């Protein structure tokens, strides 16, 4: 149970936690008796300020990942008795929703909660339909079921504006009598934001509570920051991510895909969580069993298993996950609060410096001052131009210089983390800072591997004087071909760093020393954050394995066909691209689910 404070647009429900000297937090149920509840309420403000945290997603997100439970709790309502209330279901039809068996879960919930539904009117809205509401709230529940059966079996693809649908639904619901609840069921489109603040204001004016059933997003999802060219419907933007801003660095040098985009956040997208948080609602997460399956490497390769790995910390610690939950206050307020957080400022400064040094391919998109933070245009980081050249000696030299910078930055960051005050620093920002320090060490390892590859391996491969290797080994490349650049893939760190001690990597003794340091940092980080989204994210990174690239065979440009009446028109609704990395279902947006 969580205790909720009154909430307006800038402050949602507040989780009552008891801060310990160790920095750990015991959630409310562990406190036990009534007097402690009073004491805790009195300490609410103190606790909140001690942690340096405002409202987090943990306060509104319900445990569990099944559709049946979510729908049952929502349909049953918060009261055991039959009270007068109006429930408007706004459903975003999708393939994922059909697979999640939403319809049968809803039918079951209706049958199981007959007693409490006595005075409930239910309406139905479909996202993507004009004016959204297809069945205005009615006491004849059979009509709703019938319409739902007719409409939800059709699978729709594409980006749809769920916030507009919520506003349409809120306009209808505002006139209803009794308790008003809007249930938003969307497994795919929560990341397509359209004026969240306006939607929240309208919901609050209409005294409407929002209950959300959504898929889990990824940790500080950076996908849409990387893919800015995606077509979107008018007046919308693709954001995603569990927090108000992308607060975890992404795009580290020699990481093929950002770990942020493959790490389940434990929470829904910020926009959806915000709707629930600002209206005293709840968020229910859904993840299919397929999504909860563990995979060591989505894009790279795992050297140490055939996907039979049982992660020692696969079961997440919910208290720890809650500790590092993102803020769900309005975006501006969240940024203000983060600006006061010394650890957050430290992360942003280091991130910016690393981007300028070419160690990260993105800048943070946030500018920090002494005690504040403001949004900034997110620029790309410096390109060290290590890969697009066949001049191995020059690349090695540049990589070694970058490795020295990474080491220096890591040491400075570690020193600054030690100097952080115990109070006024959020757990999430502290975790991010430590995560960044380990990533800088990993980047140094990768740079040394790269340098070793350029100095020792590549020249030998292309030297005609090198003899034939003994069988079963064969020449990795045809010596007659001339390389034009270097590329890489990642060898997953899912099993940790230690197994790499046995693996033959370029870089020699220096690399071994740095690998040992990385192992120590990795283990120390996993001991603290291993059973949380940050520990999982670290395992999603990898050691780069480099290979030379060769010029392709050139081909003439494809002739464009002349326009004719037969030419198919493009889709009116922009199509959602299929994402890998946790979203193992259909084109299902950044759903990763399950904490595995």
């Amino acid at each position, binding site marked *: 149970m969580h205790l909720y404070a009154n909430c307006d647009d800038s402050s949602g429900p507040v989780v009552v936690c008891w801060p310990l000297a160790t920095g750990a937090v015991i959630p409310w149920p562990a406190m036990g008796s009534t007097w402690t509840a009073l004491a805790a309420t009195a300490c609410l403000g103190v606790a909140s300020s001690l942690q340096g945290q405002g409202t987090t997603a943990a306060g509104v997100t319900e445990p569990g990942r099944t559709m049946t439970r979510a729908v049952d709790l929502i349909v049953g309502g918060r009261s055991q008795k039959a009270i007068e209330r109006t429930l408007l279901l706004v459903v975003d039809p999708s393939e994922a929703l059909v697979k999640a068996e939403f319809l049968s879960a809803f039918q079951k919930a209706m049958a199981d909660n007959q007693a409490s539904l006595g005075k409930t009117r239910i309406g139905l809205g479909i996202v993507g339909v004009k004016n959204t509401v297809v069945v205005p709230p009615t006491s004849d529940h059979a009509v709703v079921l019938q319409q739902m059966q007719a409409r939800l079996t059709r699978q729709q693809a594409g980006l749809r504006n769920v916030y507009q649908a919520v506003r349409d639904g809120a306009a209808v619901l505002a006139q209803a009598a009794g308790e008003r609840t809007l249930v938003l069921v969307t497994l795919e489109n929560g990341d397509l934001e359209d004026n969240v603040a306006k939607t929240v204001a309208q919901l609050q004016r209409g005294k409407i509570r929002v209950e959300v059933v959504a898929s889990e997003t990824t940790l500080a999802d950076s996908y849409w920051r990387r893919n800015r060219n995606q077509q979107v419907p008018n007046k919308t933007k693709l954001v995603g991510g569990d927090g108000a801003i992308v607060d975890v660095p992404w795009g580290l040098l020699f990481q093929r895909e950002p770990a942020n985009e493959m790490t389940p956040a434990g929470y829904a997208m910020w926009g959806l969580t915000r709707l629930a948080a600002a209206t005293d609602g709840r968020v229910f997460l859904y993840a299919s069993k397929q999504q909860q399956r563990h995979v060591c490497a989505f894009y790279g390769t795992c050297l*140490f298993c055939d996907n039979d790995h049982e992660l*020692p910390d*696969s079961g997440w610690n919910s208290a720890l996950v809650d500790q590092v939950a993102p803020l769900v206050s309005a975006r501006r307020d969240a940024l203000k609060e983060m600006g006061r957080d010394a650890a957050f400022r430290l992360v942003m400064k280091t991130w910016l410096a690393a981007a300028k040094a070419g160690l990260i391919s993105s800048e943070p998109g946030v500018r920090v001052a002494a005690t504040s933070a403001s949004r900034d245009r997110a620029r790309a980081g410096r390109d060290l131009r290590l890969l697009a050249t066949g001049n191995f000696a020059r690349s090695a030299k540049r990589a070694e210089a970058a490795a020295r910078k990474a080491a220096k930055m890591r040491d400075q960051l570690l020193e600054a983390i030690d100097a952080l005050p115990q109070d006024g620093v959020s757990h999430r920002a502290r975790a991010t800072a430590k995560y960044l320090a380990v990533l800088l060490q990993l980047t140094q390892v990768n740079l040394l591997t790269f340098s070793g590859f350029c100095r020792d391996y590549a020249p030998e491969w292309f030297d005609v004087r090198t003899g034939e290797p003994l*069988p*079963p080994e064969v020449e*990795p490349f045809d010596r007659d071909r001339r390389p034009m650049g270097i590329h890489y893939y990642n*060898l997953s760190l899912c099993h940790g760093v230690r197994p790499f001690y046995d693996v*033959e*990597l370029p870089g020699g003794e220096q690399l071994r020393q740095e690998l040992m340091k990385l192992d120590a940092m990795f283990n120390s980080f996993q001991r603290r954050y291993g059973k949380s989204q940050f520990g999982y994210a670290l395992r999603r990174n990898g050691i780069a*394995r480099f290979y030379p690239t060769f010029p392709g065979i050139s081909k003439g440009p494809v002739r464009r066909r002349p326009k004719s009446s037969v030419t198919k028109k493009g889709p009116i609704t922009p199509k959602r691209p299929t994402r890998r990395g946790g979203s193992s279902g259909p084109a299902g947006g950044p759903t990763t689910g399950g904490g595995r």
Partner: protein
Amino acid sequence: MRLACWFSLVLLAAPAVAQATVADLVQQLGSRDGQKRNAAYRQLLANRKPEVIAAVAGAIEDLSRIGQELSCNVLRGFPRREVASVYKKMMSSATPYLRVVAVARLLPDYRADSDRSRRARAIKVLTKALAACKQDRVLSAVYACASVRDDAVFAQLRLMLRSDAAHVTKGVLRQLLNREGGVNADTQAAVTKLLTAKQSQVRGVAYAYLLHGDADHSEAFAKLLTDEPGVLWMVMDLLPKDKLHDALQDAIAAALAKPRSEHDIRRLAGVLRTAAPQKLKLALRGLVGHEKDAFRDEALAQLANMPGGFGEKDLMEMLHDKAMAVRVVAAGALRKQDNRAGLKPVIEAAKVRGKHQADAARVLGDYRSKQGVPVLLDLLDAADARVRNSAWSGLQETLRGLYPYRKFDFNKCGYAPNAASRQNGIATLRAWWASVE
């Protein structure tokens, strides 16, 4: 001149010889000698020449049952447009099974609107052929048209549900479940009638199907399983894996305690793994002390493969068990959890001859450790072929894992686990290992 004549005779005779060979091979598909049959089948599968189609088309009608089925498989290997005429001819065959196969293969070509009437005719032929199939060929025919999704065919399949042949009913219901994407109201109605069948196995099959829809019949089914435990062996691969009532879980767990063979343990564990992992764990733990080694080893392996089947502490203790097989299972489970404590015990176990050695070689390969390479090299010349195969695949995985920057072509070293002479290959591998160690 004489020489030229001889050459021309040879050239003329060559296709005739090839023709005869293919025709013989097709005839051998219907042979009672399994080895001969399989050899012919393999050769025909590898042969993609048009004369194979002609030979099969000419002989298929007169072949035995197995010969007809294998011939249909051979035809499947050819592009549809090359064998379409054969299928069209087969549509008027005297054998219902061949008509079913023919229609099932031709239907994908009748998708256009202009082919609507052709499709309808084909479906009519298919349903009639299914109805005409004799009992011993019903299931083959049903499987042969597995890709056909048509209401008329589904209706015909429902008519084929029999109250006196449990295995036919089970096969048809599995197909219906698959093709209709779960429980269908019409099928459900047809299956409900089977609940009063005299044969308990038929009733069991009907219950198992209905469980995919709702759990209403769970208790009656559980009672049936308790009264007649043998029914479970008939229905276990039709059971839903995620919707099992408590009483049913108990009945299955009870059956697991008295398996007929180690294969039953594996299959029942598959049924219970998702729905009732705790009950499965308890039942498997009961088998750990079983007097039969095979049962005990299978139970241990199943437990070790379950998340949380054994705690780390248990596994560490198992590394010192008297039985080598137990040590190997524990070492394998520990490796999955990133604990490398099992490496030394499994190296020791791999060196000792016994039934466990093949598993030990496999687990050692999974460790992908430098320490394991010399042992795997030794095992390449083990007396047992299973051990050699495990060691060979383990060695390849290990070397690819440990040396990501090197490229291997393992065919080049001249080693094959089943070759008569293996020494040269092993010597080559040892020389390479000595050069990189």
